[in-house]
């Protein structure tokens, strides 16, 4: 029993230590990103890689989610004679919650793990040390550029995914009920309010920040050896996914206070 409690205390201790280290890493980001030199070229390169690499996956996933969501909801709405509410229901669900969280989870898997593995491998092969010897601040060059790029690219990817999801939903409605493009999207824009779009978009910046931060933290602090690289990539995905849901909960909680939904 004593050993059991000791183990629990050890787990809590290491969890708190990890939280402290991540907070310190985030603090260092805010401290360093404001001051020159700015790695603008590398930042643009990362924006291109992060955006471009995930575009297809986010697009396809969004489109399929729109299709499936509509197909699954149709029988229930039909039962209540409420199929005409499909566009409104789908758009609000996608914009407020499904689009941001699904896109963020996909990006956590694709971008977060990629960053974790890339920086982890650079760490264990001493490339980060070599960069420092070459007169470059590796934190600025590798970490700040990646965190900023994910923070700015994720909202764009979410918007792209949302649009394709709603388009996928429209296709189902068009095939099943011959609903016109104009009618469907009129309904979408009529139902959506600022309180749906603004908080949902704002939280995606935090999602992007979390993906970049955890990926960089895990990679940058990777322990020696190739096994460490795999662990860094894996931990980046696990930690980010957990953090995304926590951020999502906080964002919804704050939104509800402001908009009194």
């Amino acid at each position, binding site marked *: 029993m004593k050993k059991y409690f000791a183990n629990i205390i050890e787990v809590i201790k290491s969890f708190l230590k990890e939280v402290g280290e991540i907070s310190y890493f985030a603090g260092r980001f805010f401290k360093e990103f404001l001051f020159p030199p700015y790695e603008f070229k590398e930042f643009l390169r990362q924006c291109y890689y992060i955006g471009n690499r995930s575009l297809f996956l986010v697009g396809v996933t969004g489109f399929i989610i729109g299709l499936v969501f509509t197909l699954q909801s149709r029988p229930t709405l039909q039962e209540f004679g409420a199929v005409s509410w499909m566009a409104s229901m789908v758009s609000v669900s996608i914009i407020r919650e499904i689009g941001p969280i699904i896109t963020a989870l996909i990006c956590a898997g694709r971008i977060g793990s990629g960053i974790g593995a890339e920086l982890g491998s*650079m760490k264990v*092969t*001493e*490339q980060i040390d*070599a*960069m*420092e*010897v*070459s*007169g470059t601040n590796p934190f600025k060059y590798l970490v700040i550029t990646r965190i900023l790029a994910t923070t700015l690219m994720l909202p764009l990817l979410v918007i792209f995914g949302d649009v394709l999801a709603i388009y996928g939903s429209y296709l189902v409605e068009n095939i099943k009920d011959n609903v016109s493009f104009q009618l469907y999207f009129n309904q979408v824009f009529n139902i959506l309010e600022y309180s749906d779009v603004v908080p949902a978009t704002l939280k995606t910046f935090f999602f992007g920040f979390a993906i970049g931060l955890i990926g960089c933290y895990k990679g940058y602090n990777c322990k020696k050896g190739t096994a460490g690289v795999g662990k860094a990539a894996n931990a980046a995905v696990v930690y980010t996914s957990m953090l995304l849901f926590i951020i999502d909960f906080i964002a919804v909680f704050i939104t509800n206070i402001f908009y009194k939904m």
Partner: protein
Amino acid sequence: MTNDSSKAPIIVIKDLHKTFGTNKVLDGFNLVLNEGENLVVMGKSGSGKSVMIKCLIGLETPDSGTISVMNKEINTLEQVAIDELRTEIGFLFQGSALYDSMSVRENLEFPLRRHTKKFGKIKDTTPLVIEALESVGLANAINLMPNELSGGMKRRIALARTLILKPKIILYDEPTTGLDPITSKEIILLMKSIQEKYNTSSIIITHDVDCAKAIANRMILLIDGINYIEGTFEELNASNDPKVQAFFK
């Protein structure tokens, strides 16, 4: 023991201590590197050789002790001054540490474009890149990616990246580890020719006795965190101390 004091010391380490957790790695290590000298530091794996040269270039911070490079104390320097000093110190990493995402040309251009204080803003880096690649005999590899290079080629390119800044001091961390005997000999010959051509002073971390024999003007054995014994290869080889003999058997 031998220490050619007729030449000015370029690196002086005094009473260096470094501990990781409960593991005392360096426990009062001392070293003097004179101008134009090749100093080999030998020791078992995990004895703190790499930690010592990383302290030397500011990649690790020692717990105590002083490190003076070209009469500048590393511990007291601001980051800008450390970066400036690093242009005079080349570092060949154990695993070459070439940037995977960059071509050979970009790998060599990277330090050139970063250390702008020494070279200014260079518009055309090609002549300097080619010169450095020619000095390691790999001018034709300029457009290759690191994953297209063999272990020996990577080591040479890493050496070219070090040379492009025209450093006064070169630190070699296990330059022949992981290479076959023929490639190891080629790297050793290359190190000798570089020293003759550029008149560099070098610290070579190794446990390769052949490498030490071929290149050392002087040697230090790092045992239990201290410089256990110092001398020429011949002097150390002739020692009756069992700890010393263990390296030469």
